[in-house]
């Protein structure tokens, strides 16, 4: 069964304190791994998609990396506006559906 596990569940950082969020996945065949950001009261907002082991993507203070078993979202020198829930999801190969299977998310709080 395709599965996504995220850790930690919650993370509190001081402004400027770098850290990483983990996403471990089990999937029959990976078509793509996705990172989304979700602010309170809003829908998930797309950040990155990765599909090949060794691939890296960057956007401002965020960098996503991918191996055959997990993905990391590295946050460098975070600011309070980076506070949000970060969701990881996978899309599997095969079948008629290209649904996303999500993890439970990491709630990040960055304090000034």
């Amino acid at each position, binding site marked *: 069964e395709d599965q*996504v596990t995220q850790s930690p569940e919650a993370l509190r950082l001081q402004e400027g304190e770098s850290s990483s969020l983990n996403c471990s996945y089990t999937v029959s065949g*990976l*078509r*793509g791994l*996705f990172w*989304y950001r979700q602010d309170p*009261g*809003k*829908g*998930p*907002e*797309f950040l990155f*998609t990765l*599909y*090949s082991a060794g691939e890296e993507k960057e956007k401002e203070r965020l960098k996503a990396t991918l191996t055959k078993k997990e993905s990391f979202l590295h946050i460098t020198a975070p600011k309070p506006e980076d506070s949000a829930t970060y*969701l990881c*999801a996978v*899309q599997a*190969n095969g079948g*008629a*559906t*290209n*649904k*996303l*299977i*999500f*993890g*439970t*998310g990491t709630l990040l709080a960055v304090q000034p």
Partner: protein
Amino acid sequence: EAGVAQSPRYKIIEKRQSVAFWCNPISGHATLYWYQQILGQGPKLLIQFQNNGVVDDSQLPKDRFSAERLKGVDSTLKIQPAKLEDSAVYLCASPSGLVTPSGANVLTFGAGSRLTVL
């Protein structure tokens, strides 16, 4: 390109009552998804449409949930009768048009409809 529109944003009902949510996806895309997000959890797929047809409804509680997509454009998700455990945010999504070389589709989500069942 306009985003995914959903209404209502909030709804409070008593258990055993009924409720309906509406979604208008990104224009021109044949695929539409309804996800359920319970507080503290990630979104879970309820149903996927391709045009008017259902592709995947394996996790839809069919004894109380129903969905339709008339004319292959907007969609309605209905719950009748509602239970306490149906309290959640109901998210609608459609492909954004971004596709990776591996064929992965980036989905765009609406703001969601928050349901509270008392």
